[in-house]
């Protein structure tokens, strides 16, 4: 079981003056339990690509198959059960009377659970996104931007999909919220072998989490690699509108004054370790 994408192309406003090829001839396979980070500049085709995974968009040419289901087939309902999707503007998905009911919505639609079973799941999803009991009884309209985003993510976590796709989920989350989201995803992946696909602008953000990085550029997959390898060529990343972590730039600057200082550093921990080798202890 896996996601198989074969020669996928998608064109918006086909055969009009506004015609735009958003995704061009992409072929790749994602196995169960992988943690994939998709990064790329604005307009590189990330959202277009991932919206094919739950059949929201259909290929103009090529095919997408998820656990054996062709997304062009009639089994859309089954497909949506397998693939849980947090959209780029999840706030638009909120409409119930209370936060609690909003998180519950996805469960009601797809599964037959007892009231108690539902309640346990809803509270667990809320906990994963640090949504307080007090917030649960509020209307989604009474929430701050970041709180709305937490609720929208919880509303997808609660359905416990086999494949979880999140399109720029961290925009609007505060730093602790970001850390907690990644911890929750890590936990879900570890305990349930859920496939996790996360779209981001920031290499730094996904590098610590993903075991595979897809870099998108102008509608194609320009790199399919590991986080370590992806950082090797910072100039290449920059030429695709991305940037490296601050510590990588720091390493480069230091290598100008300390001969042989490694430039392939992309975590704070690695930088601390390298500096301890060259800076005299007091």
């Amino acid at each position: 079981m896996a996601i198989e994408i074969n020669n996928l192309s998608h064109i918006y406003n086909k055969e009009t003056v506004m015609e735009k090829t958003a995704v061009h001839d992409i072929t790749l396979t994602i196995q169960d339990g992988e943690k994939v980070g998709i990064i790329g500049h604005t307009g590189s085709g990330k959202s277009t690509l991932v919206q094919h995974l739950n059949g929201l968009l259909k290929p103009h040419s090529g095919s997408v198959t998820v656990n054996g289901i062709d997304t062009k087939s009639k089994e859309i309902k089954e497909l949506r059960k397998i693939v849980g999707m947090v959209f780029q503007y999840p706030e638009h998905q909120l409409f119930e009377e209370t936060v609690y009911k909003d998180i519950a919505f996805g469960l009601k639609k797809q599964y037959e659970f007892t009231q108690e079973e539902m309640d346990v799941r809803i509270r667990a999803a809320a906990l994963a996104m640090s949504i307080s009991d007090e917030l649960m009884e509020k209307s989604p309209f009474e929430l701050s931007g970041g709180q709305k985003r937490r609720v929208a993510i919880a509303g997808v976590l609660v359905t416990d999909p086999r494949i979880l796709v999140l399109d720029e989920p961290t925009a609007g989350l505060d730093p602790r919220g970001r850390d907690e989201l990644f911890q929750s995803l890590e936990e879900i992946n570890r305990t349930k072998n859920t496939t996790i696909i996360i779209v981001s602008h920031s290499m730094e953000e996904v590098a610590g989490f993903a075991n595979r990085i897809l870099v998108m550029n102008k509608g194609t997959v320009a790199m399919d690699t590991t986080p370590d390898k992806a950082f090797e060529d910072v100039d290449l990343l920059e030429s695709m509108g991305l940037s490296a972590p601050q510590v990588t730039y720091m390493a480069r600057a230091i290598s100008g004054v300390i001969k042989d200082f490694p430039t392939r550093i992309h975590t704070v921990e690695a930088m601390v370790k390298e500096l301890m080798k060259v800076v005299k202890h007091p």
Partner: protein
Amino acid sequence: MNNNNITMIQAKDVYFYYKALTEDSENVEAINGVNLQVKKGEFLVLLGRNGSGKSTLCRLFNALLKPKMGTVVVNGFDTLNEDNTWLIRKDVGMVFQNPDNQIVGNVVEEDVAFGPENLGVPPAEIRKRVDQSLKTVGMSEYAELAPHRLSGGQKQKVAIAGILAMEPECIILDEATSMLDPWGRKEVLDVLLELNKKEGITVIHVTHHMEEACLADRVAVVDDGRIIKEGSPAEIFSDVEGIKGMGLDVPQVTEVFYKLNQKGYRFPTDILTVEDALKVIKEQLAVKRIGN
């Protein structure tokens, strides 16, 4: 331009709550006693966790919301006086957290023209301003497109252009860069810094990106509807534990030296940028050479 001691916005003992939606629920206390002076020409960054009150504070600053207690005075005008609302909105332009709440036009350039039209700016001047502001944010080639076809980041840029076209004295950006990619964010920040440094435009910027906060003259940390910390970026971020305790973060570079200091090194605690880092490393090397 140096306007250093003139007040742009003065908040005194401000309290605000959102009214309960139903009879059996409680009011939401969002701002609980804020005192803050924003000086003309200042670049202020507001930090704080989700739900801490940043957006509410911004809305109080341009008279979208009125304090329940205390006062907000903008450019000498009290926001509680309805007659002032118009004057205040003319001086203080705000870009919202979600651009969909802001975009009104069917075509990008119409949308950008909307603000100056409302201010009664003459058509020829509007044309000039629209072209200029779209150029400033790098969106000229999208002038004739429908806004709903744009990506999230592009919508944010259009919303920013709409405010620039009004030429306000003070610009408030409520997480207005959250959906931009790293270069897009840098472009917008560069524009703001230039307006701030060259034309003395006051900027209030809400962000969850700590590197952006480092560009500010002053940072104020909002928590539970109060301002719990205020100071230069160096002052704010040198308290690494305090900042993390508030659910926030520090720049990576700051964290590197913090961790080294925990291991017994004695680096300064106010290193925020790659340039700062390089400087102290060079100093270290110099000492070492003399020592040897």
